């Protein structure tokens, strides 16, 4: 797998882009009995955007949580394999230490602090920072610039804001930690199309300007592959396909199943056929 990876990068790039994150043969079990990840290996090079694609239940969220060490809270366990950050094993680090090292996860399904106001939510995001109130203030302004809607609702209790507002809040909160690696779980979910574009623009900007690395689980394959450098496709807890974004975009199966493109351009949702097609890699 890593061979494929290397093929796709020019040798020069490889030198200044060592993997920040690498997962090797990771196996995860929930509740002592439910085997979810069956040996996932992947690498996230520094300053790149890597996307995880896959159907519902493929294990994307689980993979991200394995990295950020949030699995314990779900009674899940990494039973095999290694997870390395900058070449150092991090499985034993607490989530807090990971955040201190600049790895922040934006959890799927919002998870705002309901009783705190939007602004308090954002400020909590800067909990680990030690660089002073004024820096934090200016970052807060930055987040408000990205999401003006949040500014409007800054004193509303997060629990009472709309779905999209909560999603923005969760994202903004992660940015407040000034991370260098962001694990983004379905950022586009429930956002208006315009905003989805904007969010990916922000991702892109952070990536280009501030060298933030992204590991991105996303269902909106179209846009994910547009912005990502590299992609992994997960099925049933295994990596079934990986490659750089361009090659994935051109893969027939990806086109068919993830982009909704048939040979004659975009398929209409109305014309969905009533039988199930088979993915080639599962055949």
């Amino acid at each position, binding site marked *: 797998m890593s061979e494929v990876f290397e093929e796709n990068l020019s040798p020069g790039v490889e030198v200044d882009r060592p993997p920040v994150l690498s997962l090797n043969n990771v196996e995860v079990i929930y*509740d*002592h*009995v439910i*085997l979810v990840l069956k040996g996932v290996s992947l690498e996230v090079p520094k300053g790149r955007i890597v996307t995880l694609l896959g159907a519902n239940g493929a294990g994307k969220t689980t993979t991200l949580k394995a990295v950020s060490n949030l699995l314990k809270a779900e009674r899940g366990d990494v039973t095999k394999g290694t997870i390395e950050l900058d070449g150092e094993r991090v499985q034993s680090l607490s989530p807090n230490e990971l955040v201190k090292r600049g790895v922040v996860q934006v959890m799927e399904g919002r998870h705002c602090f309901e009783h705190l106001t939007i602004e308090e939510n954002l400020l909590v995001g800067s909990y680990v920072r030690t660089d002073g109130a004024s820096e934090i203030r200016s970052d807060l302004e930055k987040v408000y610039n990205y999401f003006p809607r949040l500014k409007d609702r800054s004193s509303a209790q997060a629990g009472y804001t709309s779905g999209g507002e909560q999603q923005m809040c969760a994202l903004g909160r992660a940015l407040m930690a000034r991370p260098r690696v962001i694990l983004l779980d379905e950022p586009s979910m429930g956002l208006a199309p315009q905003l989805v574009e904007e969010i990916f623009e922000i991702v892109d900007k952070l990536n280009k300007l501030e060298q933030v690395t992204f590991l991105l689980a996303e269902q909106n394959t179209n846009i994910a592959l547009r912005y990502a450098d590299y992609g992994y496709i997960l099925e049933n807890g295994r990596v079934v396909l990986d490659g750089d974004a361009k090659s994935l975009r051109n893969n027939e199966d990806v086109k068919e199943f993830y982009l909704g493109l048939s040979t004659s351009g975009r398929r209409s949702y109305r014309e969905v056929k009533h039988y199930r097609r088979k993915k080639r890699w599962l055949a």
Partner: protein
Amino acid sequence: MFYRETGQFKSSYKADQAIFPITQDRWFILFIFIIAFLVIPLTASEYLLQAVMIPLLIFSLAAIGLNLLVGYAGQLSLGTGGFMAVGAYMTYKLTTAFPEVNIIVIFILAGLISASVGFLFGIPSLRIKGFYLAVATLASQFFLVWMFNKVSWFYNHNSSGTITAPPRELFGVTVTGPTATAETRYIVALAIVCVFALIAKNLVRGRLGRSWMAVRDMDIAAEIIGIRPFQTKLIAFSISSFYCGVAGALMVFLWLGSAETEAFSINESFYVLFMIIIGGLGSILGSFLGAAFIVCVPILLTNAPQLFGLSMPIDLQKHIEIMLFGFLIVFFLIVEPHGLARLWQIAKEKLRLWPFPY
């Protein structure tokens, strides 16, 4: 792989909805029944019956009742002791007023009275939720106990305020009062508990049970799909209190023989709550397991030093016992927060896969 459902096809939904769809389970249950109805009464010592089995059954009944309310309907309640008191005092009142009426009928009547009291005290659940509700139900606990203590009518104006189980017969056999043997009392309790456990199981797998669980898991969504949360909660309070009331009646009439309000103190409420949490919220089997845990573990711990021939001061022994008990609670919660019933289920799942690990 001897324990599995593969190969056991169900050709109808009826079969699929049976309580124990798996053949091995049915055999297991039959085995338990034989032990409970035949082996134990024939072989157990009076101490075992009186100190372990009878309280175990009675607390199981109370735990089932509370589990319906807390585990299924999601309404945290600490009023159990109060409702048990209603059952006990009403049974006493009724059976002394109408000595000829069959004692089982009296139990049920007392249960019904308890249910209506439960209904009343369930009304605040319309607005109050979670721990707030739990603490609010303490109002019923304290009020009821105070009332039974204060109003001498409830204990026929005797000077001490203690109610005593008078002798009553069932099919010509004395089942309550001092002359009833432990075996008969055990069998009566067992029969009652079995019937009510079955009824509880039926309730929770039917429409009512689903409504309860819906209200528990998300009351707003339940409301939106057309379940009336208030009504559903009140039914839960009533039925739960019915069970607790009957359990309270059995406690005095089949176990203790006499009681004052202290027997229904807040500690009782807590103990029954422990049972269902340790046993497993939302599980009838869990109610039994939890009751077994809370009733038996202290007794085992008390008797353990002697079994091992250790001799130590009794207070130290008790302290160690309390600590061990606390430790076991925490330990089991860490191992499996969803209780012994879930542990049992996981064991079964593992067994199903055995000998393959996943």
